[in-house]
């Protein structure tokens, strides 16, 4: 198990390194100079030169990459252009709001998706199965920002059931949760569909397996077979799926934060673009990427803990 952990950790580090490299290439190769971008069209040539010097853009490419790379690993992603505060500090201030949104999204998707998928699989071919199937496909298809806007329109603007704006009063947990309901639904609704489908499909596959036939032949009760013998296996792909899904939920969170005017990294980076605050943009991209890789690693470790076959194959 320990070697499995280190192997996965090494792989995660490699992926992050390559991602940093790709990000650097993008910045370097794409026409457009970060200094000009930051200063806007009205800046003088001297101002650009000064900023270039400060950002280290006059050094050789490899040196630039090396500084970027080492800086990133040590948590130094440069300073914000406007206030001069370290990018890491600024991003980490906003990160908890986004994480809350994602955790909310996962809660929606797991709490609704797993029971729905299980139910559909057990009652395969019934009208309930068909309805769950069509609904899952439908919520997967519709982009999350459309859901966000319509949720805002219906529940906040028209019906006025739930608050439309902000993250709630600091310190007031109830208020914060109320403010979380709509945005997290927008983030998680599509994933209710994904998870319901995945659970249904893998349940059906597992229920066909010969060990389930054996369990039936031993007269084990249906409940034991469905929930302890089948679901315990069928749930495994869901964990992997959620690991991947977190990336998409991060994307959805950006929209949800903008639509519901919540603080968070999405709002941060969106505002940074409007103010040409380039270090914030790259810093946020990098930090969310690392976050995604780490959460994926966590998903893999959970799989390893749940599945003895994976555990011993390393």
């Amino acid at each position: 198990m320990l070697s499995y952990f280190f192997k996965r950790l090494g792989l995660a580090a490699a992926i992050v390194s390559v991602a940093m490299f790709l990000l650097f290439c993008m910045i370097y190769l794409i026409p457009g100079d970060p200094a000009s971008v930051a200063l806007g069209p009205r800046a003088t040539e001297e101002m650009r030169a000064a900023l270039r010097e400060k950002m280290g853009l006059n050094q050789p490419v490899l040196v630039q990459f090396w500084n970027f790379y080492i800086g990133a690993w040590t948590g130094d992603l440069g300073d914000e252009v406007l206030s001069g505060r370290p990018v890491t500090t600024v991003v980490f201030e906003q990160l908890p709001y986004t994480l809350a949104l994602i955790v909310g999204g996962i809660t929606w998707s797991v709490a609704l998706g797993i029971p729905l998928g299980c139910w559909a699989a057990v009652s395969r071919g019934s009208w309930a199965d068909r309805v769950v199937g069509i609904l899952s496909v439908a919520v997967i298809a519709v982009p999350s920002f459309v859901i966000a806007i319509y949720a805002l329109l219906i529940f906040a603007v028209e019906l006025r059931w739930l608050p439309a704006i902000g993250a709630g009063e600091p310190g007031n947990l109830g208020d914060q949760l109320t403010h979380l309901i709509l945005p997290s639904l927008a983030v998680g609704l599509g994933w209710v569909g994904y998870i319901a489908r995945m659970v249904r499909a893998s349940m059906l596959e597992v229920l066909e397996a010969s060990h389930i036939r054996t369990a039936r032949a031993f007269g084990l009760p249906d409940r034991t077979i469905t929930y302890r013998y089948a679901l315990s296996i069928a749930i495994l792909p869901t964990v992997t799926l959620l690991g991947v899904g977190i990336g998409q939920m991060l994307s959805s969170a950006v929209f949800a934060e903008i639509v519901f005017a919540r603080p968070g990294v999405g709002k941060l980076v969106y505002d940074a673009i409007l103010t040409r605050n380039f270090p914030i943009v790259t810093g946020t991209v990098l930090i969310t990427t690392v976050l995604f890789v780490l959460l994926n690693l966590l998903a893999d470790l959970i799989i390893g803990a749940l599945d003895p076959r994976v555990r011993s194959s390393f």
Partner: protein
Amino acid sequence: MAELWRPIRKILREPLGALGLFLVLFVIFGAVFADLLTGWDPTKINPRDRFQGPSADHLMGTDQLGRDLFARVLYGGRIALFVALVSTAVSLVIGIILGLIAGYGPRWLDNLMILLFDAMKSFPTVMLALALVTLMGPSLTAVMVVVVLVTVPGYARIIRTQTIALKTSEYVTAAQSMGASSARILRVHILPNVIGPLVILASMDIPVVIGIEAGMSFLGLGVRPPTPSWGSILNDGFTNIRDTAWIAIAGGVPIIITTLGFTFLGETLRDVFDPRLKGR
């Protein structure tokens, strides 16, 4: 002709497939014949007619600048379909080539490419879009670059996994033992067996691509205003949501119709032509 008709009949036999096909054709029709369906110029500003509800004159009403929403929706459909079809096709070609190389090539190359694909996929889509657009400036090209960057790793991985599975299959070994070249094995024995499922999966990705285009335009990172896009209409609707709901409805409903249509169609295609792909 009969060859073409049979799959269509199979799709029509499924209620969901028939609905999907109808919705998709409906959207394509609107986009193609936009000039004939409306006399309004989608970019013409008309300050006196702001925030109008639907009427015989303006079928979907007007936006905050008095532009006809029906015309904007029709022309916005052209953008959405253009981006979806072109960038998916480009992604497919690149993905297939990279996937075949990774799957059939030497082990070290495979490992390297997998690492690249995984790193690409670890950027959250919107974050990648934001970073790219900051540098490139908002444009249709930027949207398409984002779509390709986001979808290629997935396609390449699928092709790679299938290629690796087939590489050790008995019929490929048999071809090797007959002396077939790598090019022939890839062309005759591997490609035909991996491409079908991928094309179906890609067709199911079209709604995702439409979502990316609309999403970026919503954030002001896609097509430049005044060019109409469903995403930018939706943004207008969002900005003015307390004044009128009509703009948000005009921007969102086409997105919902199109994504649902393509998804239902794609699902049916998959179930009909490659039942192995679905859970059951």
